[in-house]
């Protein structure tokens, strides 16, 4: 006879290690996003997350999620096996082992979940991340103000050897042609759009935590300084989801604060520039069009002309190779294209189910929906690690939670942190 304790072992205490661990990783995703291992291909953040995941598994902060692990094994196995029919049946397949390996490596941490996913832990974690988001917004605003008083933009990381920085991103660029003012990347961002995305996430956290509306105003100004729609998209989608759920009772003050901020913002050059981008999707060659429309137009004929390519795909990384061959700056490979063009309908469907499942059962429906939409519509989100990392930190590692989502059972006043209440 032998015994088995049925409850999860508490190795490191309750919520504090989890809070420190997640907040630390969010801080790392802000501070280290531009750094790469020698060669400039593998971001330092990949190493950070894998090291942190190893530590989390060792100490009991993390455990493998049975369902996601099963789906991951199925998706990774089928996409690797797809190379075999591609070689036999597809005309001129382009199969990159590196591309497949990178994809599977980036998503491997999604097979894990936090051991402590309770409400109190979630609250403290979101609060800590919100503080970092506010700090990031302040730095983005300061960067803009510094340029407005006449100090030209200078890259503080220019002293770092290029081989130690992630390559292939436009760190920042003028807010309009000929302008001396650059879009805010808070000096440390991989792109203004990534900083905008992270501040946008912080804005959603602020609403979920029912923080002081002034915090949201600060975050909104930060997004405007980036002159990037990523953050606006994150907040707009999240607000739409919140308005469909019981949390809407508490959302209206934030909607009002946001509306006033937007109204005032569009009176400024940066705001006008950002507003003008709202309809740019219809313009050929615009950033939104190059991300969300033109890749489909370009790759659809190649994908659909051969039934074997439809079934088994053109090969891991083939969509990226074809897009790069066009030499069109800014033309990206959106997630659905990457999944189905490269791996076909059969393996691609398994991969798609795994990726979609990573957003299921999240503590916040708004965060899950908005990050999913951002990754699958606007960003090349399946392999851009800093984007994937946001999904891991705020959605996947907290799922599945059996309890009601935060939008259905909002935090009460008693649960709110005094720090967030200080200006009330």
């Amino acid at each position, binding site marked *: 006879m032998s*015994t088995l304790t049925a409850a999860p072992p508490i190795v490191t205490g309750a919520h504090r290690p989890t809070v420190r661990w997640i907040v630390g990783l969010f801080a790392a995703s802000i501070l280290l996003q531009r750094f790469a291992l020698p060669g400039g291909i593998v971001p330092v953040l990949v190493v950070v997350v894998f090291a942190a995941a190893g530590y989390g598994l060792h100490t009991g902060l993390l455990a493998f999620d049975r369902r996601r692990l099963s789906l991951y094994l199925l998706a990774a196995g089928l996409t690797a096996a797809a190379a075999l029919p591609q070689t036999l049946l597809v005309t001129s397949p382009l199969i990159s082992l590196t591309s497949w390996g990178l994809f599977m490596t980036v998503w491997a941490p999604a097979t894990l979940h936090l051991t402590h996913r309770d409400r109190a832990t979630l609250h403290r974690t979101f609060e800590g991340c919100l503080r970092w988001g506010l700090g990031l917004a302040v730095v983005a605003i300061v960067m803009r103000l510094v340029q407005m008083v006449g100090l030209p933009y200078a890259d503080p990381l220019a002293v770092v050897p290029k081989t130690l920085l992630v390559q292939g991103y436009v760190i920042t660029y003028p807010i309009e042609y000929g302008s001396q003012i650059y879009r805010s990347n808070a000096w440390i961002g991989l792109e203004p759009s990534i900083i905008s995305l992270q501040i946008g996430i912080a804005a959603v956290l602020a609403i979920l935590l029912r923080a002081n509306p002034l915090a949201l105003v600060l975050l909104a100004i930060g997004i405007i300084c980036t002159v990037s729609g990523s953050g606006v998209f994150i907040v707009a989608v999240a607000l739409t989801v919140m308005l469909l759920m019981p949390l809407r009772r508490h959302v209206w003050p934030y909607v009002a604060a946001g509306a006033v901020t937007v109204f005032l913002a569009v009176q400024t050059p940066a705001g006008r520039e950002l507003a003008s981008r709202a309809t740019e999707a219809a313009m050929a060659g615009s950033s939104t069009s190059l991300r969300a429309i033109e890749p489909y137009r370009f790759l659809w004929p190649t994908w659909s002309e051969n039934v074997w390519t439809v079934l088994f795909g053109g090969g891991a990384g083939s969509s990226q190779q074809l897009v790069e061959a066009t*030499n069109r700056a800014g033309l990206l490979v959106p997630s659905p294209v990457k999944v189905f063009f490269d791996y076909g309908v059969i393996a691609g469907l398994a991969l798609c189910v795994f990726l979609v499942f990573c957003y299921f059962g999240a503590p916040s429906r708004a965060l899950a929906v908005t990050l999913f939409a951002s990754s699958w519509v606007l960003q090349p989100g399946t392999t851009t690690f800093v984007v994937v990392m946001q999904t891991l930190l705020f959605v996947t590692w907290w799922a599945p939670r059996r309890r009601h989502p935060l939008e259905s059972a909002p935090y009460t006043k008693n649960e709110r942190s005094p720090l967030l209440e200080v200006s009330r």
Partner: protein
Amino acid sequence: MADRGGLSAHTLFSLVRRNLALIVGGTLLGAITGFALATINPTYGATVVVEVATGVDPAQTSTLVESAASTIESPAIISKAATTLGVPDAQLSQSVSADVQPGTNLINLSATADSADSAVEAATEVTNVAITDYRTRSDERAKQVRSAGADLLADGTLDAARAESARQASIGSVVGTAQGQAIQDTVTLSVASPALSAYREGVSRPVGIILGAAAGALLTALVALSQAWNRRRPIRTLDDLEYAGDISGAPAEPADRAAGLALSSGRKVVLVLGADEAGREALARRAAEGMVLNGTHTALVVVVPGEEDLHEVGADRWEIGAGQVDEVLSRVQRRRLPERLGTDAVVLCAPLTDDVTLYLAGQDDYLALLAIPVGTQVGRAAEQLEKVATADPIGVLQA
């Protein structure tokens, strides 16, 4: 209480270790398949980048570049190249493609073959034939214009020298303009980037082996883990219960520790639960004896079928009918029970029925030991543990 459903790294690795033979077998099978596929029927590709130069309005350039791409793939070009290469026209036609790089005046002329050299030769030969063809046609056109001018000059010579001079100047001007226009309309092809080497299409042997091995390892790992996670699987060892994934826990330990765990918990009431009556009572007796041996005055209360009130059946041994179970299981009665029986602690042995669960669910003021007979389905054991999950129950597997 933490959320359940996780699988510790230790558990996962031990699961993999247990199924190592299956996973290694799958990996080898995948690697061999990948190697075989990469070896059979290898295809190589080579690409020449051809630049199209035109003298026309840039707005018309894209049309001319598209036309050039179509011409390169035309039967006339392919046939000439096929004759030189010594291959059938149809075979070369299938292996050659000319694709315009969007937004540029460059054409990717690609050829595939079963060897690297043949691919390079095919791409290069088709390019050369196409360039020569365009050059020939352009020369012919210029020649035609020159010839037409010469004919005009030769015909209708005027007698008057001044008039003849004026006629020749006029015709020369017209011919010059026509020649200029012909040159402007001429499309010329040139090699922007030759095919210096071929690339392997599909997968090379190392890549085939790696991808095949990865596919084999991942899919057999999935099969192995799915078997372990089957909730209908009979429990043989405590590992089976842990591998089910719904209950993550500590490593298996001897049942004698049940008494020690009860004492360490500081709880005055220890509930021994389970579906099997004999196994449940044996575990309860063992726990009670262990506690007494350690100096804790302990009473054993067994819930039996019937309606009898609580009554003593031996030294510190009591029985109560299931119909009167509220007398000992309701929260208030449960807390008073040791005092009521004049002992320091009570080991209470009861079936885990719905009635009993009603008194216990959501509470954690007792220690729960769950007797699980060998052969119980994983899912069934997990359900029972779930009923008293709040109390962090300890499962005891009974042979």
